[in-house]
């Protein structure tokens, strides 16, 4: 087998890795894990579209770009706090600018009882041993290039633990801001989130831009829910129009654990979201709801994989996609009901709207069932705005553009009806409405 050519992308990051001192370097097992993952990344490079997981997302153009690693000026970058303000939403805030923790934008005083919340860079300065399992992972799949890159180069991120029985419903806000710099930056964030037995957490994750730039951000989050824990997780993605953002969330749900995830994807030029969940304990329940709204030449690829692995587990997934102009949306929802996961209940709905003849959406629900007495349903559609509804609105005086925006928002809105925090539900609705062109 011939050695793949080192692309400018790989070259720039490999060279940068040799010069940069990441938080936690000097910790033997971490150094080793970073080194090995970097080697694996360099050896394999970025996947091409022959790799199943990247079939619809070409990385050729990204491969030709060069990025600087990290932002030495991050602490001094002025950012527009309005970009991530959530009126009516309180709670602790952990904020990062260009991948670097910013204490001045965070709110970490008076944390509620049972909540341990700190940047990874800080956690690594203390006892790093509890992070060893998460941070010394090796990624072996062909499609895992960004996870390898992240494992090799992540120097910061979020460490969040909720003690058994504690309730943190604040919610906790995680804010990731991209700010203009002297060139194109790459940053990598690694999150470790754990909910103890019977713990409850409400979490909001925001990706926002404070000014135009074309940075690359990657993040890998491991989220573990112990027995009976409950998580409510809302993600609002409004990265810069030129930005590239690659996220991977891996969830592990124990017995009787319940997780509810809502995702609103609006920004970025190239956005990839991998959402992997394992329902590992009996009666674990997962609900996912996502919306992407694309225009221009935006490309958004969501790859969801849910694995039912225990008795009487349930998952419900409701995803809506909207693509206008020349944008491209990809949604893959794969649900596996493993042998022995009897009595599982899985449903998946992916409905999509094309607002232009040049936009494209590929949706692919997949269901594999290896257990007994399983209830499963899935459906996927790609369509257009209903002409009768459009005419009805226009006949009442609502101009065409506004009528289209109204129907598009209505199409998406059902997903967020299940967001329990009223302020957040409203914020999602407002961001969505503000994003839709009304003229």
């Amino acid at each position, binding site marked *: 087998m011939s050695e793949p050519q080192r692309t400018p992308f790989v070259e720039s990051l490999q060279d940068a890795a040799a010069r940069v001192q990441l938080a936690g370097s000097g910790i033997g097992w971490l150094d080793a894990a970073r080194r090995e993952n970097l080697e694996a990344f360099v050896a394999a490079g970025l996947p091409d579209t022959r790799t199943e997981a990247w079939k619809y997302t070409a990385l050729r153009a990204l491969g030709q770009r060069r990025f600087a690693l990290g932002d030495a000026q991050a602490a001094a970058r002025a950012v527009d706090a309005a970009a991530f303000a959530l009126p009516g939403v309180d709670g602790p805030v952990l904020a990062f600018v260009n991948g670097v923790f910013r204490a001045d934008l965070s709110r970490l005083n008076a944390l509620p009882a049972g909540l341990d919340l700190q940047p990874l860079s800080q956690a690594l300065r203390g006892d790093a041993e509890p992070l060893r399992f998460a941070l010394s992972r090796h990624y072996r799949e062909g499609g895992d290039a960004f996870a390898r890159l992240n494992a090799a180069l992540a120097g910061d991120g979020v460490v969040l633990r909720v003690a058994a029985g504690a309730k943190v419903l604040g919610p906790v806000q995680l804010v990731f801001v991209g700010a203009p710099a002297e060139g194109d930056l790459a940053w990598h964030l690694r999150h470790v989130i754990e909910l103890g037995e019977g713990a409850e957490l409400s979490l909001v994750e925001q990706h926002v831009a404070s000014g135009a730039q074309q940075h690359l951000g990657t993040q890998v989050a491991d989220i573990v829910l112990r027995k009976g824990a409950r998580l409510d997780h809302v993600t609002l993605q409004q990265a810069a129009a030129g930005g590239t953002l690659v996220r991977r969330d891996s969830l592990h749900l124990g017995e009787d654990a319940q997780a509810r995830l809502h995702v609103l994807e609006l920004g970025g030029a190239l956005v990839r979201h991998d959402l992997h969940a394992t329902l590992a304990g009996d009666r674990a329940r997962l609900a996912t709801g996502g919306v992407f709204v694309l225009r221009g030449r935006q490309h958004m690829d969501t790859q969801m994989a849910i694995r039912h692995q225990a008795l009487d587990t349930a998952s419900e997934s409701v995803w809506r996609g909207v693509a206008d102009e020349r944008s491209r949306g990809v949604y893959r929802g794969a649900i596996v009901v493993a042998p022995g996961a009897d009595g599982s209940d899985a449903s998946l709905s992916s409905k999509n709207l094309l607002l232009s003849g040049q936009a494209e959406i590929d949706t692919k629900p997949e269901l594999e069932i290896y257990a007994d007495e399983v209830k499963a349903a899935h459906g996927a559609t790609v369509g257009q705005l209903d002409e009768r509804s459009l005419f009805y609105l226009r*006949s*009442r*005086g609502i*101009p065409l553009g506004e009528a289209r925006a*109204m*129907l598009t928002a*209505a199409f998406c809105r059902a997903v967020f009806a299940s967001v329990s925090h009223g302020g957040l539900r409203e914020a999602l609705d407002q961001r969505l409405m503000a994003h839709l062109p009304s003229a």
Partner: protein
Amino acid sequence: MLKIENLHARVEGKDILKGLTLTVNPGEVHAIMGPNGAGKSTLGNVLSGRDGYEVTEGSVIFNGVDLLALEPEARAAAGVFLAFQYPVEIPGVNNTYFLRAALNAQRKQRGEPELDSMQFLKLVREKLKIMQISDELLHRAVNEGFSGGEKKRNEIFQMAVLEPKLAILDETDSGLDIDALKQVAQGVNALRSPERGFLVITHYQRLLDYIEPDFVHVLADGRIVQSGDKTLALKLEEQGYAWVAEKDPALSGASA
């Protein structure tokens, strides 16, 4: 106010309206009756600007403006309102939100100041009282899960809020039982005024028992073949549409 002259229109290549002429003045209620397929609904759709209807000849002048040259939203702002035969359900769009957006969009197009939510709420309360509609309807999505009667009442309620100059009622009586029909008619009667014209399109005479027209026109094969006062409607009820065809030999072939 509304002057339709020699209107010809086609749908999917088929001629439906074949030279319709009609004038509606402010304050007048005109009933358009006719057998199925005569072009009744086409008339409403052409006037409100629905896609797919091609006007091949003739003109429609509304208060001095060429109505056919306007987009549907501009026709609404100019004061044309169509009460749909089949109101559309729009899940995810709240009825109140929709109505306020519609009213403000019209006001904006007319260069009038928009209403804030307090002013709008006040207006809506007044109209609810007139229409005898429960405000529960307002909190639901537009027409979603409404009964047939609720949908038609919602149409009339929208009309009350939007205050059009010309209201076109497209078979508003279809699918209604007698109680619902009375309620809808009551609403319409409450909106009759010297400034407002009505075009009431219906297949049956029964609606006209409750909404008394000033003029009745019989539409057959795309043209008005007979006009008269409300007694014409009663005669039609008695003798059926065949009677019209008999009187007009040119039609007997078409309606046979």
